[in-house]
């Protein structure tokens, strides 16, 4: 990602503290998807993935706060949207397991990470027990 000359055209931030934030998360992602010119299907995938990731933060962190940063991306070839979900929650113990379908901790869908991964073009997760989690997703315009 360092190779890409990023043009930070627009940036938005949302605090994820309770489930009313999810509507805002989806609204902001939709706005950015439209600004980047994503197709309807790409937009829907981005919003769905974002909703899942934001929901993770609410479900798996009790007092911890989470934040979402959304920005436009543009390199010499294409445009897209990058969304960064961070929280200072307990962190993910076993990242490999969490990224495997069928893994479940709380609730019936676990962390929904494999599903979110399939919905977006790029996903990077940084997490360790005790130091919170950061998930970065990117959706490009085809």
């Amino acid at each position, binding site marked *: 990602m360092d190779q890409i000359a990023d043009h930070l055209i627009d940036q938005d931030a949302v605090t994820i503290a309770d*489930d009313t934030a999810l509507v805002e998360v*989806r609204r902001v992602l939709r706005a950015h998807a439209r600004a980047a010119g994503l197709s309807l299907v790409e*937009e*829907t*995938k981005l919003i769905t993935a974002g909703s899942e990731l934001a*929901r993770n933060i609410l479900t798996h962190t009790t007092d911890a706060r989470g934040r979402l940063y959304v920005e436009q991306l543009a390199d010499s070839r294409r445009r897209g949207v990058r969304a960064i979900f961070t929280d200072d929650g307990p962190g993910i113990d076993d990242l490999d397991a969490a990224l495997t379908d069928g893994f479940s901790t709380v609730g019936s*869908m676990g962390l929904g990470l494999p599903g979110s991964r*399939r919905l977006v073009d790029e996903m990077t997760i940084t997490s360790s027990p005790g130091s919170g989690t950061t998930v970065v997703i990117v959706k490009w315009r085809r």
Partner: protein
Amino acid sequence: MSDDLIPVMRIADTLLVALQGDLDDATVIRIEEQLTHAVARTGAAGMLIDVSGLGAVDSFIARVLARVVAMIRLLGAEAAIVGIQPAVAIALVDLGVPMGHLHTALNAQQGLALLQRLRRSGA
């Protein structure tokens, strides 16, 4: 008893409701309650939930829909989801939420035919 958040239409012994826009979790839960109560109160034999107004369905809404359908079944009725949009269908498959047990139809018209078929086959 929950307030009526969304209008409920009745066609013969089938109830038809529509979910639209971007709903927050609390509202979704309240709608769930409203629907279950409506089926219980009216003794309807079937319910169609039209989601063509939903731009995105995440795992939460999917779970709630599954719950509503299950509850309605327990009340002796049958339910179907109609109007899942193409983009939403694609995203749901990618997301990997199991939706196989849900009855679905393209629109209300096909949904009514589906419910009749289910009743005929003694579901």
